[in-house]
């Protein structure tokens, strides 16, 4: 087994300039990758990911243009949502594939370089710590940043689309260190969304690939200032061989509202961690998710909502559909801190198990240190409702189609609440295809 230090050298060899990269490196030096036995990593196969990382190579540097990526491909994989678009290919910003020209007033998007003039001189160095070893690695790698900055009192009526395309396995120039065979390339995408006080904004972040064994270690930070309303959709649809360890950190000031949806449509191992801190009075967080592992896929959702301030409201609604030998997991954690009042938190995680060999795990957790709360959670695991299936069949609908209808109905609650319509349509099309697949 490769040591953590060697892993770091291998995956983040020279990059990592700047204070944040230093913090990431220091954290990784101290802690390394997470302990596979740690509770938060119980359902993420850390050992398997580590093994893949040991054979992985960093994504190629320097080639800002890709021979395989063009606009129609991006549209097909990630959908087209009519607003500004930032495209990163294998971790690098692609100006020619992005649409950053016609940005409305008050919105600033681009990579770190493009937004350098926006940075206040003498801005304080970051004080936060990485959440875990993968997060630290993301920082240490010091990849290009996708930045979406919204001024105060700005109301955007089109969504900003951030696309991360992985062309691993389909590129021929995997770098001088590349060994033959199925060695994966690793990227460490980092996205920052900051929405100013009183503003309204929507961001769609798509992770897509053209095939091959890629490893994506992503980190997204969403900061909602006082009274901001933010919609954030995360669609993880890398190819079936891909590994994705993702973390979304959401920080909310007083009276802000953030609605975040995560959909995992594919990927061999996908971890979707969402950490929300309700730091200001009266903030509201609505999280939802959908995951459908099939084959031998592992999809793990680890969601924490921390009610640090009073009068917070949070909802979590994650739905799992597990097929074939797939294993889908949900660990939801609501924390209500001592001294807060007026907290309202609800958690739900219904699961559908489609085959005798699939597996669903659910851990809806509540950790409450204050009494003025109303917290509920519910989780179910079961198969399709026999009565409903029979009812549909008795009306002449063939079994496979009836199953597809019921599975789609189960998932619809999450997909139907997605806006904008273009994304909802994109997901509905995918859902339709998938439900037909899993029902036959």
């Amino acid at each position, binding site marked *: 087994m490769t040591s953590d230090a060697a892993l770091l050298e291998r995956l983040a060899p020279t990059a990592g300039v700047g204070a944040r990269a230093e913090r990431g490196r220091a954290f990784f030096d101290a802690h390394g990758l997470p302990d596979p036995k740690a509770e938060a990593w119980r359902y993420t196969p850390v050992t398997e990911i580590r093994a893949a990382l040991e054979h992985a190579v960093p994504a190629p540097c320097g080639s800002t243009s890709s021979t395989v990526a063009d606009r129609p491909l991006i549209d097909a994989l990630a959908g087209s949502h009519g607003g500004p678009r930032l495209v990163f290919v294998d971790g690098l910003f692609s100006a020619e594939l992005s649409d950053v020209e016609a940005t409305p007033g008050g919105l600033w998007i681009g990579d770190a370089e493009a937004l350098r003039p926006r940075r206040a001189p003498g801005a304080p160095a970051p004080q936060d710590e990485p959440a875990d070893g993968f997060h630290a690695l993301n920082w240490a790698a010091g990849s290009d940043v996708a930045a979406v900055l919204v001024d105060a009192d700005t109301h955007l009526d089109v969504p900003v689309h951030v696309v991360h395309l992985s062309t691993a396995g389909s590129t021929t120039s995997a770098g001088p260190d590349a060994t033959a065979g199925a060695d994966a390339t690793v990227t460490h995408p980092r996205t920052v969304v900051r929405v100013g006080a009183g503003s309204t904004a929507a961001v769609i972040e798509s992770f897509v690939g053209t095939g091959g064994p890629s490893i994506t270690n992503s980190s997204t930070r969403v900061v909602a200032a006082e009274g901001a309303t933010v919609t954030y959709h995360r669609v993880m649809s890398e190819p079936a061989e891909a590994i994705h360890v993702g973390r979304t950190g959401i920080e909310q000031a007083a009276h802000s509202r953030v609605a975040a949806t995560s959909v995992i449509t594919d990927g061999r191992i996908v971890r979707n961690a969402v950490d929300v801190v309700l730091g200001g009075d009266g903030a509201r967080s609505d999280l939802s998710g959908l995951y459908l592992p099939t084959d031998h896929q592992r999809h793990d959702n680890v969601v924490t909502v921390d009610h640090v301030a009073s009068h917070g409201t949070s909802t979590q609604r994650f739905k799992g559909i597990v097929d074939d030998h797939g294993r889908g997991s949900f660990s939801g954690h609501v924390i209500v801190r001592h001294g807060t009042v007026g907290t309202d938190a609800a958690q739900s995680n219904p699961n559908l*198990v489609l085959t*005798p*060999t699939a597996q669903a795990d659910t851990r809806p957790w509540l950790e409450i240190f204050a*009494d003025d*709360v109303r917290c509920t959670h519910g*989780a179910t*695991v079961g198969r399709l409702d026999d009565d409903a299936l029979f009812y549909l069949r008795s009306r002449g609908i063939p079994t496979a189609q009836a199953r597809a209808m019921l599975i789609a109905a189960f998932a619809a609650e999450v997909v139907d609440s997605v806006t904008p319509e273009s994304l909802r349509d994109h997901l509905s099309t995918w859902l339709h295809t998938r439900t037909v697949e899993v029902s036959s």
Partner: protein
Amino acid sequence: MTDVIDGLVEREYAFGFESDIETERAPKGLNEDVIRLISAKKDEPEWLLEWRLAAYRHFITMVEPDWAKVQHPPIDYQDMYYWAAPKPKGPAPKSLDEVDPEIRATFDKLGISLAEQERLTGVAVDAIIDSVSVATTFKAKLAEVGVIFCSFSEAVREHPDLVRKYLGTVVPPRDNFFAALNSAVFTDGSFCFIPAGVTCPMELSTYFRINAKETGQFERTLIIAEEGASVSYLEGCTAPMRDENQLHAAVVELIALDDSSIKYSTVQNWYPGDAEGRGGIYNFVTKRARAGARAKVSWTQVETGSAITWKYPSVILQGDDSVGEFYSVAVTTNLQQADTGTKMIHIGRNTSSTIVSKGISAGRAQNTYRGQVKMLRSAQGARNHTRCDSLLIGSDCGAHTFPYVEVKNDTASVEHEASTSKISEDQLFYCRQRGLNEEDATSMIVNGFCREVFDELPMEYAVEAQALMRLTLEGAVG
């Protein structure tokens, strides 16, 4: 409301007296010699000594678990006594009349009058002080139908084959840190054997009392219900008020063979420590049952005592169509900590389990439900329903719910629901508008909250449990 909370925090422990019973003890500390001494004192066969020593040798390689949401200073396992017994005043008592009057007085004070029990209540009692069983009532009557109910030590002497056949089959000596410790040093406990087809004609009950200072209590209970047998068993526990923490690490094994039924009820009221968190029992207990085909095991617990409670009465649902139930009320006040729940491991087909947990947290206490439901691939058609509710009284306490659900087949169904809230202002106001004072209203609402669990207790203990809850909340006066 503040008054009620203050009252809750200031409640007094009613069983905190200490009896002046002369005690005989093994030397302080834990080593092979102490284990040999315990075994020798009890005149045990060689196999059992070897069993203990093997457990001990494994124990010293283990580390104390740290995953529970409880905090305590490190326990010095060498700084306590592992065996204490009331010193016999002459030969062993032949009947209740010959039991040491001080011991009888102790149980009278606890409301477990051994003599009266025998005459009136029709419940067979095994009374255990510190490490030793001091009296078992109704033995003769039970023997008529073939039921064996005696102290564990007696079972080792009189029924060694049964003990050897079943001991450690549900909770192996290496199962966990505290189970290994118990296996090495357990001193006494209760043994019940219900032969095939027999319905035990009365409730069986064990009353545990810690009396001696600086002494750990490590009892071992083994209940076997043969095919088609049925039994209802209750345990109660108390201890004196002391500034020190005392360790209680028990192991309970239930073997429910095909078509049998075991109902196991606990009213746990070990000394919880004072308002500042000084003293109190560390209650680290392993309780587990194995259910055969169509067997039913039901755990009911009312946990009001102990400084720390760490226990997860579990059922391995091995046989097809077996049923597991867990009904729990856990109350914590002051600085008490409870991390309790259950495990339902579904192996057989069409197995079903029900979990109902009610947690009440007041003062600065931390109350955690931790429960696992596992549906293995073989558990076709298995079902679980879990309901866990927490009630918070006061803004400085905590209530935590940590379920773990793993389902490995598509025919199983699991439903889990939970809620956490403070006592409803609407309910309080409604009661008070009808003339109830705040304390009575609180007590009434809390008892209502726990009703579903109390209903599972045998009648006379349901009354006792409600009285205990009331007592717990009675400090509210003032």
